[in-house]
Structures are given as C-alpha cells and as structure tokens.
C-alpha cells in the first residue's frame, strides 16, 4: 500500500529578553545553578508574576511577520502539574486565547516550487527549570535558572507530508526568528526546540491516522531521523495488523529510535484555568503599529530583492539570505567590491562558508571581514590578481595576514599583465619544446593546455591566464 505521512510541529522559541517573563531575574545561559532565580521564579509564598512587556512586543513581531491576527485580548492560564523543576506546581501559559492567532510560512521544496505551511497559533509561556539526575548519588538536583524564561510556542497545522518538509519548515522558522532578533536560535542551549506530531494514512484517505508526539528533537538532523524512524515504525505496525497508539514518544539519539514515554491514558489532566494573578493581556493598535515599524526586511523579501537587485540566481539568493548575518555580510562585501555581486556571491558561498565550516566558526567570529572579501573581489576584477592567486590571498587572510593588498604585496602575487613580459615567457617555453610544437601543429590540439600550463608555471602562477591564452594562440596559430 502507498502511505502518506502527516506532520505538524510545535516549536518552542526562547525569546531573547534580558529578564524573565514574569520576574526581573536575568535569563543569561550558563550561570551557576540557582543563581538566576529570584523569589518569583522559585514560586515562594505570596509573590506574584508581572508580565515583561518586551516579551509581548517580540511575540507581536513574530505574529506580524507570519501574517497572524494579533489577539486584542488574550488570556494567561495555569497549566497544573507536579514536577520538582516546576516551582509553583503550575506553568503560566496561554490556553484557549493565545496572543498570536493563525498565519503561514512558505517553504521551498527540494524539487523546486514552494508550499505554504499554516501556523495555527503562537502563545506565550514560561519555561520550567531543569532536573539533574546525575552526580547526586541517586537523588535529583533542581536548577531553577531556566524557570521563568520566556517561551513562545509556535504550533503549525498538520500540513507537512515528509520529514524533508518538516525540516524545511523548521529551518525557515529558525531563520525567521533570528531575522526578527527575537531568539538567538541556539539549539544546543535549547533556545529553539521542536516536538513533532506525526501520523500515517493510506494515500487518498482524508481522515487523519492516530498520531504520536515525538519529543526531544533538538537538531534539524534529529528531526529528520526521528521522523523517518517513526514513519517506518507506524507503517510496519499497521501493515503487520497492529494499531498506532496515541502516545508521547521520546527520541533516543544514541540508538536512533523512538520510545514510548506515556500513553494518552497516562497523560496529565492539566486542569487549565485562567491565571487570576494576571489581567487579560490587551494589545492595542498603537502597540501593533509601533512593533510593525521595527520589522526588518523578512527573508523572503530579501531573497527576492537579491534576485532583482544583484541579478543573482534564485539558488544563490536563497543561500545568501539564509541568515540575516550572512546577507548583511554579502551586501557589505558587494559594496566594497565595487558592485561585483555574482563574483562576491561565489566567494561567500564557496570559500567563506567552506572555511567557516572547516573551522566550526560562526560568522560573527569570521577572521575575514566583508570589507576584506570585497577588496579581494575588486582585485580580481581589476586583474591585479588571478583567481588562483586570490585563493592564496584568502587563505592568508583567514590565517590573520591582514588586508588583501598587504597580502598580495607581501606574497608577490600581483598578476603579470605586461604583454611584453608574457610574450617573453611564451617564447622561452616554445623554444624549449620544439617537439610539442610540431605535434600541435600536426593536429594534436590538446597540447594547447600543456603550453598554457608551462607558461603559467614559468610565471610562478602570476601571469594573467586570459592574456596567456590569447598571446599563445596568436603565436601558435598565427605564425
């Protein structure tokens, strides 16, 4: 039978505020355990939550970017359950009236074309702390530094039909929240976390199959692996006469499998009710307008502009606008190069990204600045150096050798463009290889490349290849 996969994602985005959602404690990552937890985060008796206004602005910004309706009057609710790292015994979240309602995100499909993924809602909530089960001699340690960290949970419609689409959506969202500067996107530190709802059904069937919820998918790779495993598991189960059980499953990274965590029957009854310590959250048109003015150019708009303004292929534009930082880098470099967009794009996409990848560096820590790269491109364009030479310059700049002109001078990489000098080199090569000349003239045209190589070698790579080509042709064919 042919099966169809249906996937919806719930993505928790940690909002990049300095203080927590309901208290003034700092949100910085990596502090000593329990050093960033004030009485409010600790759920001490009598203390009360006060909503951080910046959290609201960030969520509104997201809502505007994905075309959502901003709920004028949304409501916080208590989600009640017991866990040691949940200090109050409830999480303050939003339930039936979320701040961000509806919206959509377009993803690019691998085979070309795009697909619209619906966003059901996005709501605000506080994070819990962390339970630490190791190093405490069979006891559990609780670190409440993370308790009260602002989260926005973005719930998608079940619109994705393959793990690839799910990953594309997740990457798109990841880029967007970083563009909006509302999340640092650091998946290792848990700033961007994903749960997936997945079911399968026979192709053509319109009803949804029984779904499972997968947790702990904290990298793009894990999402794809976990979903692929789960699709196979569900299909095998059904094909062998079994039934999928609605349950929450945990992805085991080491074994690459998903494991049952709790079934629907074991699920908590969260006893949601409106949070009486907070008034309904009212967002007026003025605030929405204010936030709208702070919206940056969005990834799709930027990609389109790169195609028209820089005459770049769609693929290049997509790569270069994947993050706001890379797009900014590219634009500064182009401007410095004197407007040579395509060549700059090539250098960014090949050399720069390869080096970053090789050294495991973030763009922010890149030793080559956009200005340096732009100047390098300019030197190629004005024929000061050859493409080959430019690669050496780039490598030297990466190692900290300084500005391109300094490196070119220091390494003597300045290209030879003096026709006289090149002609002299050609004459020398021809004199030394009479046999090859005869063979060439007898019709062995492949030997042309041999001559070019010899001349370049004689110039220590500094001769302008185009000029070598032209002059050599004249000499060999013309005389």
């Amino acid at each position: 039978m042919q099966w169809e996969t249906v996937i919806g994602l719930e993505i928790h985005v940690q909002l990049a505020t300095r203080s927590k959602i309901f208290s003034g404690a700092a949100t910085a990552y990596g502090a000593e355990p329990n050093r960033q937890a004030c009485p409010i985060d600790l759920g001490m008796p009598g203390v009360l939550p006060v909503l951080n206004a910046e959290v609201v602005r960030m969520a509104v910004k997201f809502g505007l970017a994905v075309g959502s309706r901003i709920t004028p009057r949304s409501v916080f609710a208590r989600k009640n359950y017991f866990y040691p790292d949940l200090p109050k015994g409830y999480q303050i979240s939003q339930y039936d009236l979320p701040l961000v309602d509806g919206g959509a995100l377009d993803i690019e499909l691998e085979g070309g074309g795009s697909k619209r993924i619906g966003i059901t809602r996005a709501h605000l909530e506080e994070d819990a702390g962390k339970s630490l089960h190791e190093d405490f001699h069979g006891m559990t340690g609780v670190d409440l530094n993370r308790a009260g960290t602002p989260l926005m949970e973005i719930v998608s419609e079940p619109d994705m039909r393959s793990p690839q689409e799910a990953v594309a959506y997740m990457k798109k969202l990841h880029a967007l929240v970083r563009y909006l500067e509302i999340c640092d996107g650091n998946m290792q530190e848990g700033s961007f976390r994903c749960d997936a709802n997945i079911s399968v059904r026979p192709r053509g069937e319109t009803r949804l199959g029984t779904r499972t919820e997968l947790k702990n998918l904290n990298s793009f790779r894990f999402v794809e692996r976990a979903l692929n495993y789960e699709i196979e598991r569900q299909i095998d189960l059904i094909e062998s006469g079994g039934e999928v059980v609605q349950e929450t499953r945990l992805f085991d990274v080491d074994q690459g499998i998903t494991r049952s965590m709790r079934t629907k029957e074991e699920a908590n009854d969260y006893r949601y009710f409106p949070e009486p310590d907070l008034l309904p959250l009212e967002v007026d048109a003025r605030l929405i307008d204010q936030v709208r003015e702070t919206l940056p150019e969005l990834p799709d708009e930027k990609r389109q502009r790169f195609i028209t303004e820089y005459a770049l292929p769609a693929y290049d534009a997509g790569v270069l606008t994947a993050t706001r930082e890379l797009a900014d880098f590219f634009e500064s470099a182009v401007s410095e190069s004197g407007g040579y967009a395509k060549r700059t794009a090539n250098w960014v996409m090949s050399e720069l990204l390869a080096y970053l990848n090789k050294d495991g560096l973030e763009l922010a820590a890149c030793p080559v600045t956009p200005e340096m790269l732009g100047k390098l491109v300019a030197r190629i364009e004005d024929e000061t150096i050859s493409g080959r030479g430019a690669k050496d310059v780039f490598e030297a700049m990466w190692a900290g050798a300084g500005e391109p002109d300094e490196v070119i001078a220091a390494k003597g990489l300045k290209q030879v463009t003096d026709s006289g000098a090149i002609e002299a080199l050609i004459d020398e090569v021809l004199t030394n290889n009479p046999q090859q000349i005869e063979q060439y003239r007898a019709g062995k045209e492949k030997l042309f490349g041999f001559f070019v190589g010899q001349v370049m070698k004689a110039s220590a790579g500094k001769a302008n290849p185009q000029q070598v080509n032209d002059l050599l042709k004249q000499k060999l064919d013309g005389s």
Partner: protein
Amino acid sequence: MHRKTVAELAAALRAGEVSSRELTEALLQRIEQLDPQLNSLITVTREQALAAAERADARLQAGDGGPLTGVPLVHKDIFCTAGVTTTCGSRMLAEFVAPYDATVVERLAAAGAVMLGKANMDEFAMGSSNETSYFGPVRNPWDLDAVPGGSSGGSAAAVAACLVPAATATDTGGSIRQPAALTGVCGLKPTYGRVSRYGMIAFASSLDQGGPIARTAEDLALLLGAMAGFDSRDSTSVDRVVPEYTEGLNRSIKGLRVGVPTQFFGPGLADDVRSRIEAALEVLAGEGAELHEVELPNMELALPAYYVIAPAEASSNLARYDGVRYGHRCAEPQGLEDLYKRTRAEGFGEEVKRRVLVGTYALSAGYYDAYYRKAQQIRRLVAEDFQRVLERVDVIAGPTSPTPAFNIGERVDDPVQMYLSDIYTLAVNLAGLPGLSIPAGFSRGRPVGLQLIGGYFEEARLLNVAHKYQQVTDWHRQVPEGFE
C-alpha cells in the same frame, strides 16, 4: 493607654505624652500576660518591635512622623515579613522565613507603624472560626469558650482584647468582616485591587484582599490610607489615586440611600442578630438616611459558587508546597511520589486538604464546565445584582454574619454549617466590592456586627457612614471583661 484608638495614640505620641518605646513595652507586657488565654499571636517580635519603636521615636522627635508613626500593630501571619517566620497558620510553613516583606508590611513600616508580632489565623486562611490553625484555636475575648471567627481570628481577638490598637488581616469570603463582627471590632475589606497582594500568601487569588482591623471607623481610615495604592509588583492592583480617607468621615449622611436586601434577613438569621441589625438601621435612619428594601436575587447561589471558585484557585495556589524548595518536607522520602504524598499529608490540615480535593475535582477534565465555568457565570450574576442595586442606593446594609460567635468545637465536624457563617460576606468578594463590619450590639454577651457594602472604590463612603454611626453609638467602646 492600651484602650486608646490609633487616632488617640497618634495624638498622644505627637504631643510627647508617651513614647513609642513606652507604648510598645506596655503592650508587649500586656501580650505576655493576657495572650496565653487567647492564643491570638503565633509570633511576638519583641526585639524588632523595640528597635522599630526607637526609630519611630526619633522620627517623632524630628517632627517627620505621620499618623501611624510609633503606633503598634500586629500582622496576620499570612503577610510575609523579611526575617520573621510567616506560618500562614500551617505546619507546612511553621518554620518558613521569607526574604521579602509583603507590600502591606513594607508600607506600614514606612509609615512608622511598629510590628509587635504575627497574628494567628485559620490554616491558609481557610476557615471561619480559627480552629483550623496548626497553632491551636484562638479564643474570643468576650467569651473564652467561643470562637473569634476566622480566618483573621487572631487579628480580631488581639484588637478586641486591646493587646494592640490595630491589626492587618485578609478577606477572601469574609475573613476580615466575620471575625470583626464576632469579636466586636471594626474590619474593612477594600475593593479588590485597592490593596496590593504582593507578599500576602495566596488562598484564592481572585478573591483575596488585605485590609485593616481596628476599634473605630476612623482608625480603619488611617490604616487603609497607608495600606492602599497601586503596586507594580501586583498586576491586579489598581492604579488609582488613594483618597484622604479621614477627610470625609464627618460628612452628614442625611439623604443617604441605604439598601436593605431582603435576602440578608431570611431564614437562618438568628433573632437576636436580626433585632440588633434592625436597631442599627434605625440609628442610621435617625441620622437622616433613607432605608430602601432591595433585592439580590442570586444571593443564594453565591455560597455554592464561592465554594467552587475559592477551592479551585486554592488547589492550584497550594501546589507549590511540595517539600522541594522550602517549608515542611517529610523525613526520608522514598522517591518523588512519596515525597509529595507524605509532605502534603503531614503539612496540611483537614480543611486545607478538603478544599484542595474539592478544587482539584472542580477543575478536572469533564467537570470544568459543570463546576468552574458555571461558578464563574454565577459570579457575574451576583456582581450584576449588586451593580443594579448600587445604581439605586448608596450603600447596602445588613448583618455581617447570621449568628453571633459559636462555641469552640461546635461546628468543626460540620463544614456546611461552618461555611454558612460567611453567607452574607462572600458574595461581596465574588463581586470585588468593598465591605466593612462594625459593632452593633450584643446577643447574650456576644457581639453582633453590622455590615456595610459600597460601590467599587467607595471605601470613603463606607467609612463615613460607619463613623457617623459610631458618633451616636458606643458599641465600639465596649471592652470585654478581663481585658479592661
């Protein structure tokens, strides 16, 4: 000196007739002598009190004292006090010391009031008799066999016995007004949002409101002035100017329209209480007030609605007492469930457990609509009833509680009888309105309280009416035998 009101003490302190230190020492001595009979205080803060008194004296001498500077009081043990245990009347918090002051505590301290200790109360403010306290019941100074009411029974008894001229208290369904009525003192529950709840341990967040207990309406006005006002740490506190509550106290009440709800005089109201309240209404009429019979048709739904909403919120508010971070923790827990079960089984008393169970049930999947949502609808109806009436009258008047103080032990096994003690007060909390109780006579030696209810933020008017009543009556001047 101990029989003086806050206003009288303020005058004496400022005139230099007595120092705060002398006053504080005298009252501490009185507490030591008399409180063992009453058990109105859980903690006495002698050292801190003397230090605060000396600071107050310095302020008074420098001439920058206010009306509360140097005035001793006690805080209900539900208000967190930095460095001093805050038990909330529970074993769960028997040794809990908060690192912060409640806003109410902070404001009164800033006004120069001197805290002598922390008052006994029903556990987590759940009770109407002060018998649910882990620290033992409080006795009514008017009759040591009687309860003082609750949950602010300690605050009310301490003021009634002249151990202190004033106390703070909280009211979720009548917990200020009912004990004030049962001990013959004055208690004011302000409009919801008038007084900050920050640092006030939550019972039912949408109903809880802090307020003062004292011996005169004038004193309530002085205290409320210091306690009230917007607090950025409490999102439900209201940003609205705090009027000078003492200014309008003497205004004439000629032509004042007083609504008398028939539902407050139905079956269940003790005859003695009825006659005392009718007499009190006549006094108001004698001052020129017009009495109007009014209807609050949904009154009888208030009690069941209250006993869904309050426990529902409480079940969530009390979830934090899990033995993990502070408070009672069972010995040698065998795993997480065992920790939760034994900690909470040992830390909470019967009434608290009853309400946590009821509230958890009311919020459960499948029951939410039938209970919690329905109760919220009733709450709106009750509030609308009051609104309709308050368009036609200026204040509503009636009994605070259907009976005078009952005997200790009399109702402990009958929660419903106990809950009925708040039948006239809890609707006011559901509506969020201000209400106060003042002494209006006695029934066989036990005090009876007159309740006045006003529109939102109309505390000044309630205080005005109460003050005028107290100008022509002397019930509030009575002191129980043995505590003169």
